[in-house]
């Protein structure tokens, strides 16, 4: 039987944990609100941009070239299945194309590939809510280089469709996917389609990467909010149970002591 002191110690421990999970929830919800508006605008932009880009006719890439994957995860854990859901999807995909070139964003992603023994071309970590310009430029450079080497460029990220609807996705960025129902033959391009793509490549990649990163970042905050909320609820339940147990034990001890005193007193009076 656990001693009264042990139960008390557990209660204090859980109360401390609850304070931590509660604070983490608050931090995530503040960060979430900070980027919420940005995500809305950039999602609207990227939808239109991809729609237009997909009308520019481009030659398909050679099947022989290995694709480049840019994988966007987080630095920190404690966000439910946020990283693992994405990594499961990516791992399945790249297992089919051995030798895929990978660029990782986030400590968790880097660790995952290291553990699986998969080499990455580049790794970025310690990134906050905004991608620093040098990281964006580096990513753009790598993507353009691979594209010119005839590779397709993919980005694996978590699409934010609502706090409880986080969707891990693998999006092909280059060449842009053609949309149905827009025969590009109807369009006039100035300069030529190839030159437009060349001209807009940096702009398009920059907007795409920023949008994917923001989506991943807000999804991470949402995942952590949900995880921390349920951790706090669990802590509450545990505290209730332990509190009841503590009082029960205390009552038992007092009852036992009283009955000992009473029986002792009876013994004397006899």
């Amino acid at each position, binding site marked *: 039987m656990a001693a009264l002191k042990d139960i008390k110690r557990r209660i204090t421990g859980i109360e401390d944990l609850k304070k931590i999970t509660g604070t983490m929830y608050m931090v995530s919800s503040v960060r979430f609100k900070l980027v919420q508006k*940005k995500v809305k*605008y*950039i999602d*609207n*932009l990227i939808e*239109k*941009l991809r729609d*237009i880009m997909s*009308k*520019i006719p481009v030659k398909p890439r050679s099947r022989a070239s290995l694709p480049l994957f840019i994988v966007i995860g987080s630095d920190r854990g404690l966000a439910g299945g946020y990283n693992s859901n994405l990594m499961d999807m990516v791992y399945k995909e790249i297992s089919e194309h051995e030798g895929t070139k990978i660029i990782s964003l986030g400590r968790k992603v880097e660790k995952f590939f290291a553990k699986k023994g998969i080499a990455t071309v580049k790794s970025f970590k310690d990134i906050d809510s905004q991608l620093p310009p040098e990281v964006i430029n580096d990513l753009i450079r790598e993507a353009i280089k691979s594209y010119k080497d005839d590779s397709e460029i993919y980005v694996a990220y978590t699409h934010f469709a609502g706090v409880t609807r986080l969707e891990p996705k693998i999006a092909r960025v280059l060449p842009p996917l053609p949309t149905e129902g827009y025969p590009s033959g*109807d*369009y*006039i*391009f*100035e*300069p030529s389609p190839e030159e*437009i793509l060349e*001209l*807009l490549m940096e*702009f398009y990649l920059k*907007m795409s990467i*920023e949008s994917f990163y923001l989506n991943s970042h807000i999804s991470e905050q949402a995942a952590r909010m949900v995880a921390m909320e349920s951790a706090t609820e669990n802590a509450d339940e545990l505290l209730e149970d332990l509190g009841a147990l503590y009082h029960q034990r205390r009552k038992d001890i007092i009852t036992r002591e009283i009955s000992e005193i009473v029986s002792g007193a009876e013994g004397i009076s006899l």
Partner: protein
Amino acid sequence: MGFSLEIVSPQEKYQRDVNMVIIPGVEGDFGVLAGHTHFITGVKSGKLRVVDKNFDAYYSIDFGLVEVKPHKVTVITEKFSKLKN
């Protein structure tokens, strides 16, 4: 007869029915009226002019691209802002 003009940036969105727009394209400035043919080109940073009945305004815009359809023009740019006349 007018058409719908939309300017989109990562920070904001602007939409308005207009009669004419003059865009600083990479191959030179060009004007668009309703019924223009399908057309895609790059936009260089410069001044974009929006004209409507009793309305004539200039916007400074950054590099980007534009898609022209007979009844809709979409400009996508990194940044844009209204210029004081």
